[in-house]
């Protein structure tokens, strides 16, 4: 492992279990202890010009595709869109003041703060958990698999998962199923009061504006807006409420709509059907619920033994709640977290494999000693495992950070056109500006800014390499 974390590597290929014939590319650090310095071939070594011949193709490519572009981008970023006027640092100023680029910057910050942490933690958890099971290899293969396929394919996969319609999108199908079990939708979400009938909306349910009293006029609650097909099979033709005896309140809740026309508004007509199973409650003047009941199949209800007074008839909101439509994953607010979810799916395997390699290189004695001293498994994990793993965790974290800074494909593929602006990140904005809007000055400035952002990683990289090599 040329460049894997040192502790696992020093463990003698614990990373990937290289066979004897397959030592894997060992880190340069491993050479140092033996005083084994490659290249000091002494008098036997070939002359310098020979080295140049071996290096020439590589140097030409690196010069043409990396060094020259860096210089040219810096230069080009100081010019305007067509490249005719020198504008100094204007492009950089615009980058921070221009709303679209500012959104991209803000999203990049969210990405860099959230994604590497989430992925590293997931990798750590998976690596620790799989230490204890027999099918760990199968599990690791499954979780690592997305690393092999393109971000485009992963993006398509998650466009399907995040489809808004719960009938088609997996994520919302799962969520709405759970939601419907916990809090089922009402039978009559489309209902609305018959106008002019004195029924008014109340907290998601409905109530009669006019109060009722025991033994008085029956309560008529006509509703409309429900398609005849949506009525439960048990619904029977609506019945007039019976005359209320002393201490009783009666009424009918029905669909005040005569199929084919006709019928009087607000009156129970022969063709109309009752709404069964609707919760009805009597609320007294103090706002307390005096009694509750449910309508019968013909829509009638009655309360017996009600104390004297004036009451309001209310219909239970639970019978009228809309079915839950799921989460708008790819809407403006959630699109970035949703794409970070897809990113986790792609990269967790990477973090897991590196961390698992580190874990298997931890000296068992250290863990055993802690256990013998009476530490719980959690304490062993927290106080021994994690500190010993920290160099590996750091490498995973920094690597993820570099990739996250440059994130392009997943955002570009998953965010639908209408929310591309809300999901924007620097790399996408750079492409859009330079090759969509044809502003190569601004595009170059964004590219240079990205380069500046990865410079700390470059320094980390070089210093680590020199430390290992010294």
């Amino acid at each position, binding site marked *: 492992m040329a460049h894997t974390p040192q502790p696992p590597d020093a463990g003698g290929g614990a990373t990937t279990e290289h066979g004897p014939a*397959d030592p894997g590319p060992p880190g340069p650090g491993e050479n140092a202890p033996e005083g084994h310095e490659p*290249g000091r071939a002494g008098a036997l070594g070939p002359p310098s010009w020979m080295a140049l011949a071996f290096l020439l193709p590589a140097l030409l490519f690196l010069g043409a595709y990396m060094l020259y572009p860096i210089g040219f981008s810096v230069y080009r970023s100081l010019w305007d869109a067509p490249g005719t006027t020198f504008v100094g640092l204007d492009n950089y100023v615009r980058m921070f003041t221009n709303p679209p680029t500012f959104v991209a910057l803000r999203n990049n910050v969210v990405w860099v703060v959230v994604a590497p942490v989430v992925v590293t933690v997931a990798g750590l958890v*998976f690596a620790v958990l799989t230490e204890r099971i027999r099918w760990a290899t199968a599990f690791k293969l499954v979780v690592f698999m997305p690393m092999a396929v*393109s971000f485009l394919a992963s993006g*398509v*996969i998650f466009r399907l998962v995040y489809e808004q319609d719960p009938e088609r999108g997996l994520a919302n199908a799962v969520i709405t199923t759970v939601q419907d079990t916990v809090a089922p939708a009402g039978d009559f979400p489309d209902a609305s009061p018959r106008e002019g009938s004195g029924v008014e909306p109340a907290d998601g349910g409905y109530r009669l504006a006019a109060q009722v009293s025991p033994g008085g006029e029956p309560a008529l609650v006509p509703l409309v807006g429900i398609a005849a097909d949506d009525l439960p099979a048990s619904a029977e033709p609506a019945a007039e409420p019976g005359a209320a005896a002393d201490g009783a309140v009666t009424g009918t809740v029905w669909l005040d709509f005569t199929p084919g026309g006709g019928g009087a508004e607000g009156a129970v007509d022969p063709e109309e059907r009752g709404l069964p199973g609707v919760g009805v409650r009597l609320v007294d003047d103090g706002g307390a619920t005096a009694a509750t009941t449910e309508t019968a199949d013909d829509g009638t209800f009655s309360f017996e033994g009600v104390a004297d007074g004036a009451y309001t008839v209310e219909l239970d909101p639970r019978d009228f709640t809309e079915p839950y439509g799921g989460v708008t994953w790819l809407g403006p607010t959630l699109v970035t977290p949703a794409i970070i979810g897809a990113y986790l799916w792609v990269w967790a395997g990477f973090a897991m*494999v590196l961390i698992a390699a580190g874990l298997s290189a931890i000296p068992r004695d250290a863990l055993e000693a802690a256990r013998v001293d009476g530490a719980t498994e959690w304490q062993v994990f927290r106080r021994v495992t994690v500190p010993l793993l920290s160099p590996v965790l750091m490498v995973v974290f*920094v690597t993820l950070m570099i990739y996250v800074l440059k994130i392009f494909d997943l955002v570009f593929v998953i965010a639908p056109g209408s929310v591309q602006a809300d999901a924007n990140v620097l790399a996408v904005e750079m492409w859009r500006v330079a090759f969509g809007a044809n502003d190569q000055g601004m595009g170059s400035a964004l590219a240079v800014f990205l380069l500046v952002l990865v410079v700390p990683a470059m320094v980390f990289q070089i210093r680590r390499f*020199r430390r290992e090599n010294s």
Partner: protein
Amino acid sequence: MSDDAATTAPPGAGPDPLPDPDGAEGALRRSAAARAAARLGSGAVQLLLVLIALFWLVPTLGLFVSSLRAPADNASSGWWTVLARPAELTLENYAGLLDNPAFVGSFWNTVLITVPATLLIVVIASLAGYAFAWMEFPGRDWLFLGVVGLLVVPIQVALVPIAQLYGGAGIYGSIAGVVLFHVGFGLPFAIFLLRNFFAAIPRDLLEAARMDGGRELTIFRRVILPLGGPAIASLTIFQFLWVWNDLLVALVFADAANQPMTKALQAEMRQFGANIDVISSGAFISMVVPLVVFFAFQRYFVQGVMAGAVK
């Protein structure tokens, strides 16, 4: 976390890149109660891992099943309803794709881009890696540190300059332009990986070869390349998948006639719902080669990816 994990999975035991430290029992020989608790906990862990594995598998399965359903079915119901109606599965989407010359062309473009780019990277990086590891020349260490620094340079920096360069040279939009760009950006990692591997080849072997009067190219071919086989295999597979899966470079440098599958499919994404038949089956075809390579050569691929940490 077991005390005998180290012995149950000796390093180098097999071709399995994903070590499976087996046996959770070792450390937990305390009391019956502790054992019962451990077994219960292990059951919970297994259940959790099964759920996680499903979370990883099911979305991919969703793409696959969607690609086997007629567009009208995909528009009206979720792919999982197929469990109740397996009869609605059809190969029509794939048949349609194979009849579509644009898509078939993009498949071959992917091949024509990926194979030369991978070969060039491996050859050029092997030569350079050997020079960095075993040849003496002034400034060698600084030059190599420069390569290490270039590992993290974002592709974006080169898009505008190289596009202008290609425009002047008349290769903008061509396959050659895409290939050369991949070579340029693949080299730092490739050189880095191979140099480190070559440097670990025992010094005696090289000195013996040089003592025998072997010329550098002969030594390179007879000693370095055979011994470097595993590293070169890792690099080849890693680069192959990297280039095969690329979207950004193709987006900028390949025109419609030369575009690989990724760019062709990306163009269909604008009408995701309407084009779901092409997108799902096309995406799956584009995944097949990487998946075959991954499962066939997983240990080399995993090594390549891990070597790429902090790229």
